[in-house]
């Protein structure tokens, strides 16, 4: 019997389950290594060389170098692991989370201060909320040169 996954129809959301965890095993384990100050220094000095020490896919390495957290999550990363990369670059959780929406840091922060993103229209794929695939990327200027995320 396949894993029961009742969460696949939630827009803009990847649940970190056993399948994602298998895909992202080395990506996430690389992230854990950044909990040591000396590893953070080595990584920052030469990201490519440091990443090449890990049996990660080329796509995973590129997502890390690009700090493309959406891509990293699609490739099996988990946000609590990936947060170690952000921490290494001095980024806060808010900066990291915001970067996944297409909004600027200021736009995302303003949304949070205004009460956050509404669940309305964002519970199921196929509704019309701001987290739905057909509304990506978000933010005023992100359509210019921004990549449309595939559904």
């Amino acid at each position, binding site marked *: 019997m396949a894993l029961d996954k009742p969460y696949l129809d939630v827009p803009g959301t*990847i649940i970190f389950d056993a399948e994602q965890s298998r895909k992202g095993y080395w990506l996430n384990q690389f992230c854990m290594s*950044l909990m040591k100050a000396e590893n953070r220094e080595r990584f920052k000095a030469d990201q490519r060389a440091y990443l090449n020490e890990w049996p990660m896919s080329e796509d995973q390495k590129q997502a890390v170098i690009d700090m493309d957290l959406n891509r990293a999550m699609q490739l099996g990363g988990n946000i609590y692991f990936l947060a*170690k990369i952000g921490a290494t670059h001095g980024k806060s959780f808010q900066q990291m989370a915001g970067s996944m929406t297409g909004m600027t840091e200021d736009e995302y922060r303003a949304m949070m201060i205004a009460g956050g993103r509404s669940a309305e229209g964002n519970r199921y794929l196929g509704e019309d909320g701001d987290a739905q695939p057909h509304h990506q990327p978000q933010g005023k200027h992100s359509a210019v040169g921004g990549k449309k995320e595939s559904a």
Partner: protein
Amino acid sequence: MARITASVYTSHVPAIGAAMDMGKTGEDYWKPVFAGYDFSKQWMKDNKPDVIFLVYNDHATAFSLDMIPTFAIGTAAQYKPADEGYGARPVPVVQGHPELASHIAQSVIQQDFDLTIVNKMDVDHGLTVPLSLMCGELDPVKDAWPCPVIPFAVNVVQYPVPSGQRCFNLGKAIRKAVESYDEDLNVHIWGTGGMSHQLQGARAGLINRTWDNEWLDKMIADPAAAAAVPHIDYVREAGSEGIELVMWLIARGAMSDVPYNDKDATDLIAARAHSVRARHRFYHVPASNTAVGHLILENV
């Protein structure tokens, strides 16, 4: 005998710890968050526990993908604040209570909950931010937390995570375990994490004020209804990281108004002899990406 006198529920947002560590608590952004804990800090002084049983989740800190225990109880003498990538938080080392922790582990495992016993781990913001919120700023060297702490880590990072019902039932077993410990100890049980938040993807930043406040209502008056909520509802309504709220149910299940076995007449009568008193309730949006929720419930 030891007894659980109160339960505390609070979010454990890392940015709250950072704001305290960097002296930003007086900033306009943070003031309303910390104002919500003024009562709580005084309450902690007036109701100082002998031990805190602190339910939290490890955020890929002590547990990588090497090992993913569903429920892990700390039986060590002490726990260092972890370096989560920013350097360790400048807060005191957490002192454990190995005797009570080992007793609880034995009792709860014999009540059919298979805990993982942990003798060595660092503790991350999930554990230290609630302590900071309830105890205020402390010097990492000169000061100490007010009492020993038993860390109890729940896996809410990789699915499958335990159900709300399982957590609620585990709380009942923990209460029984505490009450079978001979020494007179005043024990608090804390459930941490939440409330609504999502840290990932196009849906990052989701907040659900209505759902959160209904949850707070249920935690006070109808915890069995909260325990029946399936995982998918947390994800849809409170965001992917809102799943952390299952941990509040462990603390709530440990309160005396919850029958150990709701099919057993003696247990039902025992539970009806008790009620909980909500001493404090607080809700604020936002702290970073998250809705901050906080409750203090006392056994009456």
